[in-house]
């Protein structure tokens, strides 16, 4: 068994910034990610990101990853890549699989920054080759420079759907439609507009997929209008020729490991599903187990960056690498920046939801205190 001070699970923006903050303050930290390279979702993003300077705004996603990895290397973060955590024992003992070998790591503290996974919707034909998630499409097109088809129909008009539409146009594909069950386009105006003005893409709001059709793989998709109760309206079916039905219907926090650990959760539709309860310092209901980024509620990379920093500072302070007063100041600065990011009609919802999660935490989670008192 490998004894470590801190293990950070997940090498996306949240895991990277958490590790950097820890290493900067002299903590011995191991960053574990299942991929060949750290960076998480950022590696697939060829577009420039929003935010402000502290969040590498205006920089393309994959370049933000490069910058963070370099910073982590400068701070001597210990990387364990191609290492997948497949189980957790006794709260904090991590079982890692790398290649054919497995290993146990026993850290004093753990930060889970495992990100999110894609949601899917089912319809007749959804198992045909050619029906795939937006993440898979991005991996093909943006990372491996291969188009998995010529014509694409995108299901979902949130930021992911409209961004993927634009990236597909850049790659030379045709986007035959964006299909959205809600009455309005869900993404930021600027993302939607840059896609439709680059490709004259028909947007079918109040529509959903009825069926994907084809013999060996998808050759067309049938869509249908839905009423206010999201029920199909008979007689409104349309058939669209397409090679790929790309599902961009949302993300859900990847909470398998925090659940195995026994962290208490709450359901949050705003944040994509079950979310581990956490306090203002990103600590969960289990002592010494922290979360940051999309696993703590699906939001944005800029927020993941700040939450990672917050978790990093919190852990460093709990291990006495910095005084609690220094930590309090540093945490406040980060929270102020988070407050600025969570403004406006899109961000406010996140701010309220974090508040709600914290109040549930405060109501329910007394176990930590009582346990430490008993000791």
């Amino acid at each position: 068994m490998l004894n470590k001070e801190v293990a950070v699970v997940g090498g996306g923006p949240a895991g990277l910034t958490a590790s950097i903050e820890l290493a900067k303050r002299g903590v011995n930290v191991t960053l574990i990610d299942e991929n060949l390279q750290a960076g998480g979702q950022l590696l697939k993003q060829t577009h420039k990101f929003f935010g402000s300077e502290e969040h590498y705004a205006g920089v393309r996603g994959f370049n933000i990853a490069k910058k963070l990895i370099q910073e982590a290397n400068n701070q001597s973060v210990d990387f364990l890549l191609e290492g997948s955590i497949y189980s957790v024992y006794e709260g904090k003992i991590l079982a890692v699989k790398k290649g054919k070998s497995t290993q146990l790591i026993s850290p004093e503290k753990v930060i889970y920054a495992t990100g999110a996974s894609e949601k899917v919707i089912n319809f007749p034909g959804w198992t045909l080759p050619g029906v795939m998630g937006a993440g898979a499409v991005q991996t093909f097109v943006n990372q491996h420079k291969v188009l998995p088809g010529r014509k694409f129909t995108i299901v979902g008009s949130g930021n992911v759907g409209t961004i993927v539409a634009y990236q597909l146009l850049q790659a030379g594909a045709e986007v035959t439609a964006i299909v959205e069950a809600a009455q309005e386009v869900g993404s930021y105006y600027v993302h939607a507009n840059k896609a439709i003005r680059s490709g004259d893409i028909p947007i079918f709001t109040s529509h959903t997929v009825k069926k994907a059709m084809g013999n060996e793989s998808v050759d067309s998709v049938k869509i249908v209008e839905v009423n206010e109760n999201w029920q199909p309206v008979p007689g409104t079916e349309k058939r669209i020729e397409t090679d790929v039905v790309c599902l961009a219907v949302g993300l859900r926090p990847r909470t398998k490991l925090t659940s195995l650990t026994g962290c208490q959760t709450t359901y949050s539709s705003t944040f994509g599903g079950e979310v581990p309860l956490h306090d203002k310092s990103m600590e969960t209901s289990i002592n010494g187990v922290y979360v940051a980024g999309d696993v703590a509620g699906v939001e944005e990379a800029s927020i993941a960056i700040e939450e990672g920093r917050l978790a990093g500072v919190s852990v460093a302070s709990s291990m006495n690498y910095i005084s609690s007063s220094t930590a309090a100041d540093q945490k406040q600065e980060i929270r102020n920046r988070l407050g600025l990011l969570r403004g406006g009609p899109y961000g406010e919802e996140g701010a309220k939801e974090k508040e709600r999660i914290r109040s549930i935490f405060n109501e329910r989670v007394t176990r930590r205190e009582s346990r430490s008192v008993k000791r």
Partner: protein
Amino acid sequence: MKESQEEKAALSKDKLFELPGFPDKEELESGPVAVIECPEEIACNVCEAACPFGAIEIGKEIIKVPKIDPDKCVGCGQCVSECPGLAVYVVDLNYTDEEALLTIPYEFSPLPKKGEIVTGVTRKGEKASRVKIVSVDKKENGTPIIKIAVPKSEIHEIRGILIEEIND
């Protein structure tokens, strides 16, 4: 699409003219100036940071909608290339008697060539008049900016180009 749905993907001119990033008529006539078509409160202030002349204001609350100061703007186009939303353009109404000069971001390859005639595309993605490429500036950040000469009557509609072979 119904009107309200359309507005979520391509704003009407009336709505755009009301934005703090949209200079008024007089300001547009007095020389090249940035027009910022970024209508929502989103957490972003890249344009403000990008402008070397301090002509774009968002402020500490980075979710505020960007505001243009036409007196300070020289129409250099730096913000056009830097905006991650590709939502900023430069409009010069005094290019020729009939034509205005429009600066747009363009992230597609191949890039058009100087002097080439291409199809103008509106903010809704519809084809418009044929337009001439006046200059192409590949930028280091990967978002080239292109200047195109467009009919004055379409200066508030055309926001992109389509390179297609047509015998004009």
